[in-house]
């Protein structure tokens, strides 16, 4: 994953072979070190508190355990974080993901009910629901993308429109009701197991690997970073910045749509009002925790994945140790502030002068 370091800088300073930094230095400088360390510490802390925490069991052909549970629950957030990472990487933002998740969940539930009422049996309603939900989600992304890229609105405002209106639209589709899904095959998406592991993990893995291949094996990743670092320069260099940004908005909503399928399948219902509530904030937090720059350019998909896992582990931990779950909000707030301060050059400079002053005194 060393490709994840900003490649715009690397080619400019080819190092002679002898001056290559050792394993330890490279490890210390690895962008994923801190998020990974945080996750490991969280898990170890849990294990200290509850010795059986890390245990995995094989029962009825399925893998069970807290780790599997955390990964399964984190899957929807992780999917959205991947989309959010790329949008933020091109200096954008999408705060409508929660609303899109609600729309996708409602559309899926609505389609299933309609197709069942229409007499289609077998797996037809399943595929119908998936296709309809993802198509509508992608359409939402196109809407966001057009407003930002073609009309030229600020991303936060362009997506605010869908964030406000989106839940209204979802309630319109569901007629203000929480739609319950009475259709067994649909439950497989969010609750099913494949090769002993939750199916949602395969969805997440497929999206992640697909993205990695697309971004690292083609020039797309370089283009995305270039747009994020300097949109004007990227445009002058002949990168089709607008088309790329537009498609990233579509992908972000698409990933929120996928998450909507997983969430609605998991609870066998679609709640237009509460599904994906505050998801946009968690996704932004995951991106920040993963070490991507919120100002664009530098991004790390693996980091965002770790960020989503950290957030879910935190939630599980807080429930496990019996602290009121509301503390979660406070902890998240302090976490994101700490991460932001560590990313801020001004803060680093200040911390450095403080350190050197103390050393000088000693």
């Amino acid at each position, binding site marked *: 994953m060393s490709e994840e370091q900003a490649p715009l800088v690397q080619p400019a300073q080819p190092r002679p072979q002898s001056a290559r930094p050792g394993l330890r230095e490279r490890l210390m400088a690895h962008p994923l070190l801190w998020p990974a360390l945080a996750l490991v510490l969280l898990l170890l802390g849990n294990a200290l508190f509850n010795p059986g925490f890390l245990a995995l069991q094989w029962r009825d052909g399925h893998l069970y355990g807290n780790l599997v549970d955390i990964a399964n629950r984190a899957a929807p957030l992780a999917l959205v974080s991947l989309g959010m990472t790329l949008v933020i990487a091109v200096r954008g*933002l999408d705060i409508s993901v929660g609303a899109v998740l609600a729309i996708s969940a409602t559309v899926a539930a609505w389609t299933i009910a309609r197709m069942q009422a229409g007499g289609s049996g077998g797996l037809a309603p399943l595929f119908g629901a998936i296709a309809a939900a993802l198509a509508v989600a992608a359409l939402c992304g196109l809407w966001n993308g057009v*407003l930002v890229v073609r*009309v*030229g*609105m*600020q991303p*936060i*405002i*362009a997506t*605010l*429109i*869908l*964030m*406000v*209106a*989106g*839940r*209204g*639209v979802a*309630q*319109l589709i569901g007629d*203000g009701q929480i739609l319950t899904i009475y259709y067994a095959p649909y439950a497989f998406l969010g609750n099913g197991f494949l090769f002993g592991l939750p199916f949602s993990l395969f969805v997440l893995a497929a999206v992640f690997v697909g993205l990695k291949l697309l971004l690292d094996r083609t020039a797309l990743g370089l283009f995305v970073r270039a747009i994020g670092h300097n949109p004007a320069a990227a445009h002058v260099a002949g990168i089709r910045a607008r088309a790329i940004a537009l498609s990233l908005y579509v992908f972000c909503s698409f990933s929120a749509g996928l998450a909507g399928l997983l969430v609605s399948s998991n609870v066998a219902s679609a709640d*237009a009002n509460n599904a994906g509530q505050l998801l946009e*904030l968690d996704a*932004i937090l995951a991106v*920040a925790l993963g070490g991507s720059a*919120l*100002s664009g350019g530098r991004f790390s998909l693996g980091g965002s994945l770790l960020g989503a896992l950290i957030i879910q582990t935190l939630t599980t931990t807080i429930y496990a140790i019996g602290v*009121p779950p*509301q*503390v*979660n*909000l*406070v*902890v*998240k*707030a*302090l976490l*994101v*502030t700490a991460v*932001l*301060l560590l990313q*801020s*050059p*001004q*803060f680093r400079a200040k911390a450095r002068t403080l350190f050197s002053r103390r050393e000088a005194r000693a």
Partner: protein
Amino acid sequence: MSIAMRAPGAGNLLRRLREPGLLSLAVTLALFVAMSAAGGILYEGFLSPQVFLNLLIDNAFLLIVAVGMTFVILTGGIDLSVGAVVAFTTVLLASLVEKHGWHPLAAIPLVLLIGTGFGALMGVLIERYRLQPFVVTLAGMFLARGAATLVSVDSIGINHAFHVAVASTRVPLGGGASLSVAALVALAVVAAGVVLAGSTRFGRTVYAIGGSAQSAELMGLPVDATLIKVYALSGFCSALAGVVYTFYMLSGYSLHGMGLELDAIAAVVIGGTLLAGGSGYVLGSLFGVLVLGLIQTLIVFDGTLSSWWTRIAIGVLLLAFCLLQRLLARGGQASGGGHG
């Protein structure tokens, strides 16, 4: 626009309307009048004074928050923490009054101070460490909401005699119409906001920062101090809105004011303030809030429309006004080039 260019003497009003902010404000006013007229034609009893005064009574807290938000957006920033600060204030106030035996008049200054301090803290993070306003205030939102639930998870009813008395006081305006104390406070905040933005050094610096922070700094304006003050002001307004909210609901609850930040931003945008900063009016936000309130009133009067149409209507209005702003911005650039 071209008329005004060809006939420079066509009048001060036409020329002034070319300013994007004023034109946007005029559109908001026209929309408000048109919606009121439509309501008057469609529904019986819509055009009574009390219906419009109720707009102020029911949206007093939103109005106060929107005034603070206007200043933040004028500098080119954003404050997502306002709804959470409102919730925290209601819970803390209710807890102090009901569980710790404080008199409301003693508790109110304290919660206002906390709200202001909280805003100032976010301002320091934004200004000193050059962090993005939306992330810092997002963290602030989590923090305030979480702190509110730490004070009390459950809703706390306020039964203190003083609180109940103020809440039920109505100031008669003649003809059977009346306003609540909260609505008067909100109107006072609007008036103070108009003065602060229009005729003080602080206000001018706010507009200058929104136009270009770098130019403002080069002009020797106190950019850093003003930025912190703007977020402190927004924190103060949120806390005051929280106090007003306790008079409206007579309770403190950590889930009060959910999504209030979105309504406030929508009101400011519909009121004609440019999201990029530098242009807009506090008075515009008053009409933005009134338009939002009118949508809700129309839906209530209709009776057959479901509540979710409110959200969709606000979304459509937001879109329309953002598109209008883009058009005006482009037109402004084009004509600016012509003048140069």
